[in-house]
């Protein structure tokens, strides 16, 4: 299949080499080699069933025990797609936000404190700092600072999603994977989540899977287009949307998809 992968001279956060994902005897992702620049937002677009979410989830080893992932995932010079690499440590470095908000049935504060405590942080002062910093980073602090002991389930959908972002950030990850983080939200909440992402770019590498091409063009620096489990194109976002190199990409973004 024809494809085009732009070369960047930027420092990389993570890259995959010939990655393939197989469910039983059904292969979902084929031979995908991609490089994700550090402290940039890269969007993964593609139709339903194109394997983009599956690809994303393999990056922090969410697939362990359920599917087979072949190929390399290189993070800080190490191939983390090996059984000898501790997947729990990987997930602390590579956080994840899901399609639907999934706060724990705990207070707002404990949503952040519980994973921190389980990861060995028990000093109350440090915990309080992390809670405040993370909620500020996720642009939720001003809305919840007066009732941190309220149940997270009482927040609105958009607030819950920002809480989930804050929860992921509280572990101080390096990379944040987002699997269609705004698809269950209304436009106003979506705008808030996007604004949060733009702010986070300064300190984090973000890889976001999205159905929404406007969203990809609004927030991302780079975009990659997946089709039927393969990488079709990877380029700076503006280039990909204005001058796509591959016919299939052009068809998809212009809506002429058969």
């Amino acid at each position, binding site marked *: 299949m024809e494809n085009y992968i732009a070369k960047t001279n930027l420092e990389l956060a993570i890259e995959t080499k010939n990655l393939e994902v197989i469910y039983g005897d059904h292969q979902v992702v084929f031979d995908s080699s991609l490089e994700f620049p550090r402290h940039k937002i890269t969007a993964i677009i593609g139709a339903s069933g194109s394997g983009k979410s599956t690809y994303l989830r393999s990056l922090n080893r969410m697939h362990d025990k359920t599917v087979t992932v072949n190929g390399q995932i290189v993070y800080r010079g190490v191939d983390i797609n090996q059984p000898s690499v501790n997947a729990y440590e990987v997930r602390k470095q590579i956080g994840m936000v899901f399609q639907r908000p999934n706060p724990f*049935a705990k207070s707002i504060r404990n949503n952040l404190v519980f994973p921190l405590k389980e990861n060995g942080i028990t000093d109350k002062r440090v915990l309080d700092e992390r809670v405040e910093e993370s909620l500020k980073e996720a642009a939720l602090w001003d809305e919840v600072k007066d009732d941190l002991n*309220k149940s997270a389930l009482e927040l609105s959908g958009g607030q819950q999603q920002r809480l989930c972002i804050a929860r992921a950030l509280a572990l101080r990850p390096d990379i944040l994977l987002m699997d269609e983080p705004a698809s269950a939200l209304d436009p106003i909440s979506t705008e808030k989540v996007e604004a949060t992402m733009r702010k986070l770019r300064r300190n984090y590498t973000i890889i976001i899977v999205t159905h929404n091409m406007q969203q990809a063009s609004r927030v991302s620096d780079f975009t990659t287009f997946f089709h039927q489990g393969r990488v079709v194109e990877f380029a700076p976002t503006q280039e990909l949307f204005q001058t796509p190199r591959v016919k299939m990409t052009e068809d998809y973004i212009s809506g002429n998809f058969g």
Partner: protein
Amino acid sequence: MNAKRNDHLATGIIYALVGIVVIILFGLIGYILVSGVPHLSWHFLTSPSKSFAAGGGIRDQLFNSVYLLVLTLLISFPLALGAGIYLSEYAPDNWLTSLMRTAIEVLSSLPSVVVGLFAYLVFVIQFQIGFSILAGAIALTFFNLPLLTRNIETSLSSVPNLQREAGIALGLSSWKTITGIILPAAVPGILTGVILSAGRVFGEAAALIYTAGQSAPALNYANWNIFDTNSFLNPFRPAETLAVHIWKVNAEGIVPDIDVVSNGTAAVLIIVILAFNLSARYVGNRLYRRLTSSK
């Protein structure tokens, strides 16, 4: 027939059916309470039962029922919790797992007399535990296990998978995710199961006749040495419960005030179950709120 009429008709039928259920339930409970409550007195609740003379109470039977429930739950809840967690979170989807599920279902539909006789032969006779609270608690565990296991499994499974993914994605182990996130969220469902099974334990008679026995030896409530035969805490003593007492008084009682004793006992049984139900719900709600900080 138009949609509106259909709807009225269906609603009417549903109300009628609900009405029948409510009438039966309230009729039964009302009858038991009306015929039993007038016989209740402080004396009835706090004096031991009598074999021949009138005026016996149910002090020991009342305590035995509660003690038996506590013992049964102490044995069956940890077992059911472990099995439920395994079935819901760890069990692979294969023939062995479905065989286990089937076995659990079969166990839950065994007649209580059969379970009672089995426990009698194995524990009372073979293991020489004798007629005792412990043998009764083990027999009741056989009833309780399938119900509780099933209930805990269902409660855990109904917590959305998104919660598990969230835990895993934060670098938590499966075990931490289960104990810290899934289990607290499942508390209300698990509690309902415990309450239902407790009602069954309180009301069970057939299985206890052969295991916990039909006699209520005099108890000394000041004796805390669980190895003394007259200590109220001794799990190796025979212990007649409220339900067994009702059966025994009616079947072979020779006291002159059979009606008074059995009606009064039945009323106490209902009230105790109700009280346990309400207090378990109260405690459970508080526990849930503490674990999840919801209002």
